């Protein structure tokens, strides 16, 4: 399957990559290899590690960092930015609707049983409006690219998306490792993300808060795989990193235990899952949470970001309906495309999936981290038979999508550079006042040749992502022509219709 390479297109270097191509041509193999080793030492020293579950060996692994950057032209980013904001606004509107009037269910646009029977649905949120009406304060939307102008949303992450610390640390590393290459480009900065995050969180202070809100980051603790990120973000924002046991609730007010006595907390950026937040509201035996937290939340005395129950918006079973949500709530055409998706819970779609296992990607509707996934074209007959059996047994648990030819970017590998598949996770901040998106995101790269699985738990690495402030030489001819006065929206909106089934229900 020929994939679109973001640097080399039909023997020519695409303009945004001109500087990098020149550097790669001049650099000798040892130099790049030395940079790679230097980067590893750097990350290990800072302590940027990632705990990998269900594996033996070193529990604190580094995610491999590839020194060749992934570049997005300004015009490309502008489209992505608008598409991301649009999508997050629709997802948030969807959450406000399903925990409120349920118009979209009443009109049959999204099947009620998919929402109300969803394990991500939180009845405790019914009839309650979170501060500012914002549920998805921080979201990470996974994008993949298949061509010069073809971007698809692969997955929405509205619960506790992680990875933003890599976006920031990767840039720091690049500026130390390859300062000249960085200086030769006008790269949009990302280092203000923590400030934007803090502003966003403060803007959502609860009604009972007076004065400057006290913000904290709530972590499950040092054994969580993303603990480094939790501590990094709290450090960068200058707020306390708390565990459940550091907080307590009195008179529906949340306090943290300090050496100077109890101190009131107004906004909690929680990095623990819904079920563990409050043993009185969810799992009774959770040791990670804070008893009484949900009562304080519903009393308007503390803000939780993201809101509990936001997970139904990013559920893979709900995903096919996002384009319809955008039309329903915003009366706009989706700027970013969905990947066509077959839901195995439906008889006709399941029949199609079972017939085409060798060409589809099959995923658990509620899986994450690349676990429990079948990549058809790379699978053996045995694996397909096993998946077929699993799908027949629990059809509702599986969805399938076409195997996309993810774009590639040159990546350091043994004996030089080679094309490797990438995706992109930008982070979207939704405040009371505005939506903020730092230009860039986390580029994940599948380091194994031909592999389409970019998850760090499956041998994926990361790259620094450059959004160029100024594109220098003009980008692709076609794009320049369609850029006049909203032309981009239309041409990309049109693409949605040709590429994906607008109803989002896939081909049956």
């Amino acid at each position: 399957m020929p994939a679109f390479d973001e640097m080399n297109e039909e023997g020519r270097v695409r303009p945004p990559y001109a500087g990098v191509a020149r550097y790669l041509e001049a650099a000798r193999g040892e130099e790049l290899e030395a940079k790679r080793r230097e980067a590893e030492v750097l990350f290990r020293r800072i302590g940027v590690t990632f705990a990998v579950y269900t594996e033996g060996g070193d529990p604190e692994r580094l995610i491999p960092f590839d020194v060749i950057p992934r570049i997005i032209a300004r015009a490309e980013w502008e489209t992505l930015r608008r598409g991301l904001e649009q999508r997050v606004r629709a997802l948030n509107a969807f959450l406000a609707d399903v925990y409120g009037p349920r118009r979209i269910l009443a009109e049959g646009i999204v099947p009620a049983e998919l929402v109300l029977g969803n394990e991500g649905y939180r009845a405790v949120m019914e009839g309650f409006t979170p501060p500012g009406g914002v549920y998805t304060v921080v979201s990470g939307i996974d994008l993949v690219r298949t061509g010069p102008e073809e971007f698809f949303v692969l997955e929405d992450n509205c619960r506790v998306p992680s990875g933003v610390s890599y976006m920031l640390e990767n840039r720091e590393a690049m500026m130390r490792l390859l300062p000249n290459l960085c200086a030769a480009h006008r790269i949009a900065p990302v280092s203000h993300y923590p400030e934007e995050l803090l502003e966003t969180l403060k803007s959502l202070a609860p009604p009972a808060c007076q004065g400057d809100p006290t913000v904290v980051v709530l972590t499950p603790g040092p054994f969580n795989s993303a603990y480094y990120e939790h501590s990094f973000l709290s450090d960068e924002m200058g707020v306390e990193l708390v565990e459940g046991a550091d907080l307590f609730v009195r008179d529906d007010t949340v306090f943290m235990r300090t050496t100077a006595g109890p101190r009131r907390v107004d906004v909690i950026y929680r990095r623990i899952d819904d079920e563990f937040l409050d043993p009185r509201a969810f799992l009774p035996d959770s040791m990670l949470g804070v008893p009484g937290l949900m009562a304080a939340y519903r009393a308007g005395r503390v803000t939780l970001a993201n809101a509990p129950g936001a997970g139904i918006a990013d559920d893979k079973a709900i995903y096919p309906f996002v384009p319809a949500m955008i039309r329903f709530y915003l009366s706009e055409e989706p700027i970013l495309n969905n990947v066509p998706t077959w839901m195995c819970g439906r008889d006709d779609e399941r029949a199609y999936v079972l017939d085409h296992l060798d060409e589809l990607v099959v995923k658990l509707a509620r899986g994450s981290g690349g676990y429990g996934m079948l990549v058809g074209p790379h699978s053996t007959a045995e694996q397909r038979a096993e998946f077929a059996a699993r799908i027949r047994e629990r059809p509702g648990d599986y969805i399938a999508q076409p195997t996309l030819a993810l774009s590639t970017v040159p990546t350091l590998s043994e004996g030089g550079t080679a094309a490797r598949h990438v995706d992109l996770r930008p982070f979207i901040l939704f405040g009371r006042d505005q939506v903020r998106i730092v230009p860039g995101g986390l580029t994940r790269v599948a380091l194994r040749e031909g592999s389409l699985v970019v998850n760090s738990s499956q041998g994926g690495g990361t790259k620094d992502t450059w959004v160029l402030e100024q594109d220098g030489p003009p980008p692709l001819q076609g794009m320049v022509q369609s850029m006049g006065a909203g032309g981009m929206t239309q041409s990309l909106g049109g693409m949605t219709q040709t590429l994906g089934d607008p109803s989002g229900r896939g081909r049956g």
Partner: protein
Amino acid sequence: MLSRTADSLFWLGRYMERAGNVARGLNAALRMASLAAPRGTEVAEWEGLLGATGTAAHYAQLYGEATPDGAARWLTLDTLNPSSVISCFEAARRNARAVRTALTVDMWEAVNDTWIDLRKIGPEAAGGDRLMGFNDWVMSRAVLFNGASMDTMLRDDAWRFARLGTMLERADNTARLLAARAPAFAPGAEADAANHAQWQGMLRSVSALRAYQHLFRERLRPARVVELLLMRPEHPRSVTACYEEVNDILSVLAMHDGEDRVACRRLAAALRGRCVSHSPARLMDGGLPDLLAEIIDGNGRLGTSIGKCFLIG
């Protein structure tokens, strides 16, 4: 500051200090053992060191009688010993990692690099002829951590709690080492070569031999050794010097909170008072073991009291 953060900083300080102290004690013991060991003091030396680290009973239960190799392994790389060098560094890093944001980069790197290096070495690196070199490395890491704290940390509550742990641990260590060598300081202990070696070993094990010479400019006498290690505020490892700093920190913390942490401060003040209220001569008349026992016990109670006051929250 979060109580949990204060707790981690306190224990970070304690464990880094303890690792250095164990190594210091080990090198002093090695030196003693390599001197002529009169009247079979070799085993006694190691048993004394195990006693000073508070792990003698645990060791005996697992391995029986103390041997030089056994004790050295137990105190360096044995993960079953919660006070071995490796356990201390592990615990220090665990605490440091939990409060990563309260530390400076230099402090974190002092702890983290130590841990990374320690994970790379095999058992042979801390045995035989390489043991002294290993101990030197451990001491240098503890000193690096203290230096990094001194030079880079804001003088805020984070500093105070880390320092509190360091000082409490250090006072405890000096008192315990002295208690372990009590016979050499007993009334009528002769100034023979064996006892002289004990006094010297005692001073070495808290890096105070040179300080003794600078301060007193005379040959080693037990009363002077005791005076230096218990009462002299000039020496940073004397019990008095440690409690002075503990007192200072506790009074700042109390002011800070606008709350009198009475029990805690009273205990610390009493401990400091006990160290300076005796004349060295009286201590040499048989009062030393009781005083040391009192200090070790009081130190434990002070630790508990600080925990109740500030850390558990």
